[in-house]
């Protein structure tokens, strides 16, 4: 080792020790009274869950008051952005994958790595990719609060009763998209009880559908379907849109055929006024994220089965994001300029890993389970029907990713999906051709990529 390197290593060691010492000797846990602002979005039930976990933390730390700033989903990101501009972000925030990378790149979040190391938590205890994926250049900025679709935990949920009535066996592990279509057609029934494979079936008087994934606005379906057809939205460098390609065209045609040719998917217009067609017993199979799996099984009054995604011409639709390119799960972050980093970390750690917090917020307030040591607590909390899902949950279906792909994220996400939904719905309604759809989307996405890369 050269003298220069030796000195550099020495300086780094001293600085690292000082940093850890500073973390340890922070006055945050001292007796002074501390008010932490906790921001989050959610339904009234989720907000109630936030309040319960905040109260549980206050009970453990009498010198801390958690001041909630809770909003519905709509408007939450706008408020956070304004707060970021004004350097007034909440101390601790519930954070979505939709804006995590964008905010992190602007220095909004505290680097939790020193705190994480000192707490002796293990990355292996978190949902796969949960810690690495929430880190940028080795710095951890978010603790995950659930699994999310970006690490490939979308599964097919199916209504076992409908399968039994249709004399269909449970989907095997290696079932294909063709098998999926066949089963969906057999599960689609008209008012006379004829299925979509039978002669005399009336598609204009359908009372039950095989699935509902033909609705082009479902980003989870697209994220999984595109790799199965060998395509993606853009190249891995994110410089060129790859929408006007045969793979994308095949995926779009397949989805449309599911509705208009095979009559096996509930059309979007028929979904008006039905919040959850699967729970309402209108459709037999859905693509679902792991958290939805548990929610659904809690809602429905029929047995639910879980199957892996069907295999397409280019394999199964799993994909994986490179570390830091996009967060694999929603989670909790700490504002970079918080006055109380130590206690804020304690609160985040409590939210992510404490059974007390998990019990306090209940099953309505979480997106799934991100911390393995809480599994037994989690299972006890779930209703019996949901437990069967958890036992064969997404961690089982977590396989090696076939491709390295980044879903649209940050500010680009909303604009991209709004445009995708609008253009594809015009195609679905027969107002524009597939060629027009793909050409327009290609051009729009290319413009978005350029804007993103220039910013």
């Amino acid at each position, binding site marked *: 080792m050269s003298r220069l390197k030796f000195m550099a290593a020495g300086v780094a060691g001293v600085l690292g020790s000082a940093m850890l010492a500073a973390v340890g000797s922070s006055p945050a846990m001292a007796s002074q009274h501390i008010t932490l602002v906790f921001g989050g979005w959610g339904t009234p039930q989720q907000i109630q869950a936030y309040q319960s976990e905040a109260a549980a933390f206050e009970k453990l730390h009498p010198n801390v008051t958690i001041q909630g700033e809770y909003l519905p989903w709509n408007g939450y990101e*706008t408020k956070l*952005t*304004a707060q*970021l*501009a004004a350097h007034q972000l909440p101390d601790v925030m519930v954070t979505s994958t939709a804006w995590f990378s964008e*905010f992190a790149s*602007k220095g*909004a979040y505290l680097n939790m790595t020193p705190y994480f190391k000192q707490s002796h938590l293990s990355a292996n205890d978190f949902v796969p990719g949960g810690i690495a994926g929430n880190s940028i250049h080795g710095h951890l900025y978010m603790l995950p609060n659930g699994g999310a679709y970006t690490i490939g935990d979308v599964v097919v949920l199916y209504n076992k009763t409908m399968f039994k009535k249709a004399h269909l066996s449970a989907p095997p592990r290696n079932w294909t998209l063709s098998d999926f279509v066949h089963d969906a057609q057999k599960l689609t029934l008209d008012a006379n009880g004829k299925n979509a494979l039978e002669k005399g079936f009336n598609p204009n008087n359908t009372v039950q559908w095989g699935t509902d994934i033909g609705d082009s606005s479902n980003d989870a379906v697209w994220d999984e379907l595109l790799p199965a057809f060998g395509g993606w939205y853009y190249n891995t460098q994110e410089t060129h849109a790859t929408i006007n390609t045969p793979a994308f065209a095949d995926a779009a045609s397949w989805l449309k055929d599911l509705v208009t040719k095979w009559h096996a998917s509930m059309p*979007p*217009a028929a979904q*008006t*006024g039905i919040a959850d067609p699967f729970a309402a017993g209108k459709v037999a199979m859905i693509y679902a994220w792991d958290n939805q799996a548990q929610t659904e099984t809690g809602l429905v009054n029929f047995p639910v089965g879980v199957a892996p995604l069907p295999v397409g011409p280019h394999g199964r639709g799993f994909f994986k994001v490179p570390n830091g390119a996009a967060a694999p799960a929603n989670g909790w972050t700490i504002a970079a300029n918080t006055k109380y980093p130590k206690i804020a970390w304690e609160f985040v750690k409590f939210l992510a890993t404490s059974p007390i917090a998990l019990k306090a917020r209940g099953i309505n307030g979480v997106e799934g389970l991100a911390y393995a040591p809480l599994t037994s607590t989690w299972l006890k909390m779930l209703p019996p029907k949901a437990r069967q899902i958890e036992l064969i949950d997404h961690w089982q279906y977590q396989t090696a990713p076939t491709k390295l792909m980044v879903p649209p994220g940050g*500010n680009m996400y*909303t*604009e991209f999906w*709004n*445009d995708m*939904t*609008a*253009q594809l*719905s*015009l195609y679905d*309604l027969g*107002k524009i051709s597939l060629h027009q759809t793909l050409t*327009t989307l290609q*051009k*729009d996405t290319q*413009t978005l990529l350029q804007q993103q890369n*220039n*910013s």
Partner: protein
Amino acid sequence: MQKRPRSLKQQQARYGWAFVSLWIVGLVFFGLGPIIASGVLSFTQYDIASPPQWIGLANYTHMLHSSVFWQSLKVTTIYTVVSVPLGIIIGITLAIMLNARIRGLRFLRTAYYLPSVVSGVAVAALWGWIYNPDYGPLNAALKAIGITGPAWLESTTWVLPALIIMGLWSVGGSMVMYLAALQQVPTSLYEAAKIDGASIVRQHMSITFPMISPVIFFMLVNGIIGSFQVFTQAYVLTQGGPGYSSYFFVLYLYENAFEYFKMGYAAALAWALFLAIFLVTVLLFWSARFWVYYEDTSLWAG
């Protein structure tokens, strides 16, 4: 040195300035300031969280090359061209009917006016229910006479007509204006016309419309400005869909500003909207000399 006493005019001027000073502060900080700022921001790339970056005319050139921009302009123009004249025709018709001496006049006037005081979001929610293809009363009524109603808000064909019909819900507001104008028309003019043998239609064409034309002009200008700024119904009911069929200009502006955080581009859109409204208003004022009748003709004197 002795101070010269202030004149009454000076004193009044001081009081005047004192009284309007608060308004001036408001204008500068909350009106003029943001207007100028938005003008400057329209030449920048600005996402709120980072400092604005000067990009020259890029926002304006992007706007002109964006198919979504032209689509939103097209939707807004169609809405304006259909809904504003329709609103004027129905408003005047109702006002003429309610200007007659019939039983229950006060109740009818109140009943027609009342919907216009309901807030936009509540109206949108109500019409969302009316248009529901499964349980909405509109399709139920159509079914009763043997017609299968469309999925109004999910159809690219029907969504814009549906929003135009919904816009007529608040026609009672303009009706009151026309009613007030009608009551200013001297009855002697009608009496003279009757003696000359003029029919009802002729009376309205030659007396009513010219006499209330200043109010029609006022409502036309306001109607066009208002319809260029339509937002609530599309935001609440359709989110611009299906497939941009109801994607109004202000919804496009809003999404760019508050969903995509493209504040610079949104500011450029706002200025484009201002320019469009300004040009149409200038055109209307120019056309007014040909069809708006003022008893004081000096208004158009050059």
